[in-house]
C-alpha cells in the first residue's frame, strides 16, 4: 500500500469510527445525476451565492455602515472636501484606495445580478417542464421564498453605499411603508429611527443584509439541495428513461468534476465582468441628500417590474374621514406583487387539484405537451415584461426618441391586453407543435427528395424516424378532463356546484391536447 493510501485510509477510518459514515458515503459517491444544460441554471444560482458570500466578506473589512457625516479626503478628486456619510466615504475608499476593492465591489454586484437572473431562469425551467409536481411542491415553495428574499437582499445591498441613487431608492421604500393603512407612519418611524433619512437605517439594513438574510438563505438552500439529493433529480423523457429510474453520471468523479469545474467557470466569468464592465459607479452619483436626484434613476433589473408598475398606475387616492389611502402606491407596490407571488406559490396545488393528479412525477414534460400550463407561464411572463419595459420608460424614451407619455399609455393598456393574447397564441403554438410531432411520427420527416410517380405525379419522399425519436414524441401521458359534476336529484346544482363546475371547466382547458399517435394509427395509415 502506498503511503498516500495509508494516510487516506487512516483519516477515513477515524471519521467512520465516530460516525459510521462509510456506508452512507459509499452509496452516495456513486449517486446518479442526470445531465442536461438546463439543470445548470440552478447551479449558477448556487455558485453566485457562494461568490456573493466570498466577495461580500471582503467588502465588510473596509465598509463602514454609518450615516454619520464626514468630510471626504480620499483620492477621488471630484468629491474631495464634500460632506457625506461614512458609508459612502468608505465605499469610495474601497473603490479607489483598496487594491482589488473596486474589483470585489463589481464582482459582488455582478454576482447579485447573475444570482437573481439564474434564479428566475431556473424557476422558468422548473415551471415549464412541470418539475414542481408531486413530490417536489415543497422545493417549489422554498424556491419562491429564495426568489422573494433575493429581491429584498439585492435592494438592501445596493442601498448600502448611500449614494444619491441608492438613497432615492430608500426614499421610495420609505414612501411605500408610510402608505400602509393605519400603521404605516409608525412602522416607517420605527424602521428609520425617526424622520427620514435619520441615522439608523443603514446600520440596521447592514445587519439584515450581511447576517439575517444570508443566514436564512443558507438554511433554505441547504434544505433545497437536501431535497434534490433525497428525492433524486428529475430527468427529461427519452429512450430508457422512466418514472422508475434515473439515467446519468455518478457523483464521483464525473459529476464532481463537471459541477466543481462549472463553479470555477461561473466565478471566472463573474470576475471577468467585475474587471472590465463597470457597474454602479457610485462616485458619479455623489452623496445622498433628499433635495437632489439624478435623472434616469433606475433600480436593478429584478426591481424594474415593480418600479414599472408604480410608474404606470393611475393617480388614485381615497380621502375620507380625515385619512388618506394611496392606491397609487399600495396597488402596484403591495397588492399586485402579493397576488402574483401567492399565485405562483399556489400553482402546483392548483394544477394537481384541477386534474385530480395525485401521482409522483419524475419525468419532465416537454412544454408543448402541457399547452395550458405553458400558455399560463408565457402569459405571466409577458405581464412582467410589459411592467419591466415601463420601469425603463425614461431610458427607452431618450434612446429611441419616444415620448414618456406614449410609452406609459402603451404599457398601461398593454399590461391588460397583451397577456391574454400571449396566452392564446402560446396555447395554439403548443397544439400546433403537438400536431407537427404527430405528423412526424406517422409520416416521417421530409427528406427534400422529389420522386416522379409512374402517373407523372411528383411526391416528396418522407423518411421514417428512429424508434428512439418515435418514443420521445409519443411517451407522454394525456390525462383526460374531469367529468362535469352532476346536479342533485331535484335538478338544481349541488351546494358546491360552482366550485365543481369551475374545476371541470379548468380541467377541460387543461386537458386540451392533440391525441398522441399510436401504433394502431400507424397500422391504419398503412392500410390506405
Amino acid at each position, binding site marked *: 500500500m502506498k503511503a498516500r493510501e495509508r494516510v487516506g485510509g487512516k483519516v477515513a477510518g477515524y471519521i467512520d469510527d465516530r460516525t459510521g459514515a462509510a456506508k452512507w458515503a459509499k452509496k452516495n459517491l456513486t449517486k446518479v445525476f442526470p445531465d442536461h444544460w438546463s439543470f445548470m441554471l440552478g447551479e449558477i444560482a448556487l455558485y453566485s451565492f457562494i461568490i456573493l458570500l466570498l466577495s461580500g466578506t471582503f467588502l465588510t473589512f473596509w465598509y463602514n455602515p454609518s450615516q454619520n457625516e464626514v468630510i471626504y479626503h480620499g483620492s477621488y478628486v471630484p468629491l474631495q472636501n464634500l460632506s457625506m456619510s461614512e458609508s459612502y466615504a468608505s465605499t469610495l475608499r474601497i473603490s479607489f484606495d483598496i487594491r*482589488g476593492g473596486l*474589483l470585489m465591489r463589481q464582482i459582488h454586484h455582478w454576482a447579485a445580478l447573475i444570482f437573481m437572473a439564474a434564479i428566475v431562469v431556473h424557476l422558468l425551467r422548473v415551471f415549464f417542464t412541470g418539475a414542481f409536481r408531486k413530490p417536489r411542491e415543497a422545493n417549489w415553495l422554498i424556491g419562491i421564498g429564495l426568489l422573494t428574499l433575493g429581491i429584498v437582499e439585492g435592494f438592501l445591498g445596493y442601498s448600502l453605499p448611500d449614494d444619491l441613487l441608492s438613497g432615492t431608492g430608500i426614499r421610495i421604500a420609505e414612501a411605500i411603508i408610510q402608505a400602509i393603512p393605519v400603521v404605516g407612519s409608525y412602522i416607517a418611524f420605527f424602521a428609520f429611527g425617526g424622520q427620514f433619512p435619520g441615522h439608523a437605517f443603514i446600520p440596521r439594513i447592514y445587519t439584515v443584509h450581511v447576517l439575517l438574510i444570508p443566514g436564512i438563505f443558507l438554511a433554505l438552500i441547504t434544505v433545497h439541495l437536501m431535497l434534490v439529493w433525497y428525492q433524486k433529480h428529475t430527468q427529461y423523457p427519452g*429512450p430508457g428513461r422512466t418514472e422508475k429510474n434515473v439515467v446519468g453520471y455518478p457523483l464521483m468523479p*464525473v459529476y464532481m468534476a463537471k459541477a466543481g469545474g462549472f463553479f*470555477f467557470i461561473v466565478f471566472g466569468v463573474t470576475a471577468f465582468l467585475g474587471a472590465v464592465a463597470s457597474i454602479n459607479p457610485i462616485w458619479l452619483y455623489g452623496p445622498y441628500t*433628499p433635495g437632489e436626484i439624478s435623472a434616469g434613476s433606475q433600480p436593478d433589473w429584478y426591481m424594474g417590474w415593480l418600479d414599472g408598475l408604480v410608474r404606470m398606475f393611475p393617480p388614485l387616492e381615497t380621502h375620507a374621514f380625515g385619512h388618506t389611502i394611496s392606491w*397609487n*402606491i399600495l396597488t402596484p407596490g403591495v397588492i399586485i406583487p402579493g397576488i402574483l407571488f401567492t399565485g405562483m406559490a399556489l400553482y402546483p396545488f392548483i394544477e394537481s387539484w384541477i386534474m385530480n393528479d395525485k401521482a409522483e412525477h419524475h419525468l419532465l414534460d416537454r412544454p408543448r405537451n402541457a399547452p395550458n400550463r405553458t400558455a399560463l407561464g408565457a402569459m405571466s411572463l409577458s405581464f412582467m415584461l410589459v411592467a419591466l419595459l415601463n420601469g425603463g420608460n425614461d431610458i427607452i424614451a431618450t434612446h429611441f426618441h419616444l415620448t414618456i407619455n406614449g410609452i*406609459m399609455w402603451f404599457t398601461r393598456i398593454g399590461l391588460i391586453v397583451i397577456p391574454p393574447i400571449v396566452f392564446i397564441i402560446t396555447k395554439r403554438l403548443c397544439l400546433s407543435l403537438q400536431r407537427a410531432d404527430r405528423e412526424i411520427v406517422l409520416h416521417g420527416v421530409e427528406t427534400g427528395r422529389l420522386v416522379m410517380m409512374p402517373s407523372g405525379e411528383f411526391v416528396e419522399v418522407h423518411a421514417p424516424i428512429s424508434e428512439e425519436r418515435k418514443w420521445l414524441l409519443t411517451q407522454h401521458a394525456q390525462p383526460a378532463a374531469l367529468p362535469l359534476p352532476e346536479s342533485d336529484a331535484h335538478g338544481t346544482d349541488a351546494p358546491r356546484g360552482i366550485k365543481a363546475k369551475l374545476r371541470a371547466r379548468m380541467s377541460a382547458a387543461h386537458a386540451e391536447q392533440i391525441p398522441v399517435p*399510436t401504433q394502431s394509427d400507424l397500422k391504419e395509415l398503412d392500410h390506405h
Partner: protein
Amino acid sequence: MTNSVERFQDPGLPAHIHRKADFDERAAKRAERQVAILFLLSALSTVGTIYSYIFVKSSAKVYLPIMGEQQVNNLGIGIGLAGALFFIGMGAIHWAKTLMDDTEVVAERHEFRSSDEDRAEFVETIKERAGTAQLGRRSLIKKTLGLAVGLVGLSPLVLLRDLGPLPKKQLEQTSWKAGTYLVSDPMGRRIKAADLEVGGVVQVLPELAPGQERTLENTGTDAVLLIRIRPEEFNLSPERLSWTHEGIIAFSKICSHMGCAVALYEQQTKHLLCPCHQSTFDVTRAAKVIFGPAARPLPQLAITVDNEGYLIAKQGFTEPIGPSFWERNSA
C-alpha cells in the same frame, strides 16, 4: 385515453458510443496534455494577478472601447483572477469529458410512499405517545401552554418598540414659518426677486437660526423650488396668485407621490417632472398633476418680500409635504 398496448414501445437506452480517448492511447495522451495546459494557464493567470497587485499603480488609467476609462490595476487583478478561476474550471470539465468514464448509469427510483402497514403503525405510535403525555385529557395544561407560548411570541413586538419614536405630527411639519428667509442652497445667501430671471429655477431652503446646523431630515422636508415665469402666464385662484411674487412661485421639491426630489423643469412647457416615476406638474396651475402616478399637486409655499426686498415665506406650508400617509387629512 389510448390503450397502452397500442402505444409505441420504449426502445431502451441507446448503445454507448466510445470516445477516441477510450481506445486510442495517443488521443488520451493528447487530452491529458490539453487538461494540463488549461491548469497551467490558470497558474500563469494567478501570477499575473499578484504582479498587478504589487507592481501596477492604482492611479494608472487606460481607455477601453465601450467600457470607457478603467483603472489598470483593477483590470490586471481582475482579468488575472478571472483567468485563474476560469481555466481551473475548463480543465476539470475537459478532463471529465475526455478521460473520465462516460458510460451512463441507471439507478432505480422508488416511490416515496411508505407501505400501508407502516403508515398505520405510525399513526398508532403517534396516538399512543401523545396519549402518554395526557395532552387530550389535561385541558388546563393545553390552554395555559397556548397562552404562555402566544405571549412569548408577542414579546419581540414589545422589545422592538424602542426602534424609533412615535411619529406624532412630525410628518406634517416643516421648518417654514411666516417671515422665514429663503436662502440659496448650498451657499445659504438670502435672495432678492431680481436674482432670479424669468425662466429661471433655483432650489432654496429656509434660513437657519445662528448656530443651527442643517440636517438631512430638514432638507428632506424643507427643500423648495423657486421658479420665475411671466406673471400673466399664471392661471391661479386669486388666493394662490397672492402667494406668488412678481412671477416667482414656490413649491415643495419633495414629490407628493413617493418623496423623490422633483428636479426636472421644462422651461418651454413650464412643467415640473419627477425623474423617479414621471409625475408631471403644471407650474402655471399651482403644480396640478397633468400626468403620472402622483395624486396631489406639490404643496405651494406662500412667499413675499421684506422691507429690503429679500424673499420670505408669508406663512408655513398649509398642508403636509411629501408622500401620503394614513393620518394625512387631505380633505
